[in-house]
């Protein structure tokens, strides 16, 4: 649950969303990403670090350079969360059907 909330926090920030948008098109080096923003390299680096910690972004070593790319599996977690919530509600309501039936029987 904690990890999932971190994902939401990670994507709540506009700069981090812009970074995701950038590297969604192609994997990029930290320098190339930083060049797209007016803020300092350190600030951009910090954003990338948060995205990496939340596993939204993966890094890959190519020669001497590190490239960042989107971790598609993590994005699917949001999908999973809604699906789990739906299943849980369905189970609860099926249980309620039985409880209602029992109460009605006992009343008669």
């Amino acid at each position, binding site marked *: 649950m904690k990890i999932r909330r971190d994902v939401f926090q990670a994507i709540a920030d506009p700069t981090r969303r812009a970074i995701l*948008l950038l590297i969604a098109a192609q994997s990029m080096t930290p320098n190339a990403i930083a060049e797209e923003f007016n803020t300092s390299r350190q600030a951009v680096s910090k954003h990338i670090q948060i995205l990496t910690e939340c596993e939204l972004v993966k890094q890959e070593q190519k020669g001497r350079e590190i490239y960042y790319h*989107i971790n598609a599996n993590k*994005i699917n977690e949001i*999908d999973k969360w*809604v699906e789990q919530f739906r299943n849980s*509600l369905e189970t*609860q*309501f099926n249980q309620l059907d039985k*409880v*209602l039936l029992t109460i009605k029987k006992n009343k008669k």
Partner: protein
Amino acid sequence: MKNNLLFDFTVDKATKTILVKREFNAELSLVWDAFTKQEILDQWWGPKPYISKTKFMDFKVGGRRFYAMVSPDGKEGWSLQKYTSISPKTNFKMYNTFADKDENPELPGSEWDLSFSEQNGITKVSIIIRNESLARMEKASEGFRQGFTICLQQLDELL
């Protein structure tokens, strides 16, 4: 138990909410009690294998329900529901959050709006859930809208 009662679950993109509709084969007053009385709630609120255990419940505006979902190995996951509006046998609203064992809420939570209506002995419960995390998620998905085709398709199906 198989039945033909309605179960409708949709995610509304425009309003960032989850909409749930469910029919129950019982009269309205009974279904209302099942959602608002501790002793009936605890019989069904925990989705198996979890068990709902309510520590206290004060069903009035401003009142709270403090309860745990207890797992088969006895672990307790606490939640708080605060009732923000009640129209008897018609509608009630609550703010739902996870909590620690000392009743401290863990924000953000979700707003629940539950409406009850009866027709021909079938009671329909309509629930609108506004989840702050979901709202943030939708915001983020706008950012993915270009060049992120595979995941975007999945988000679109979802929202």
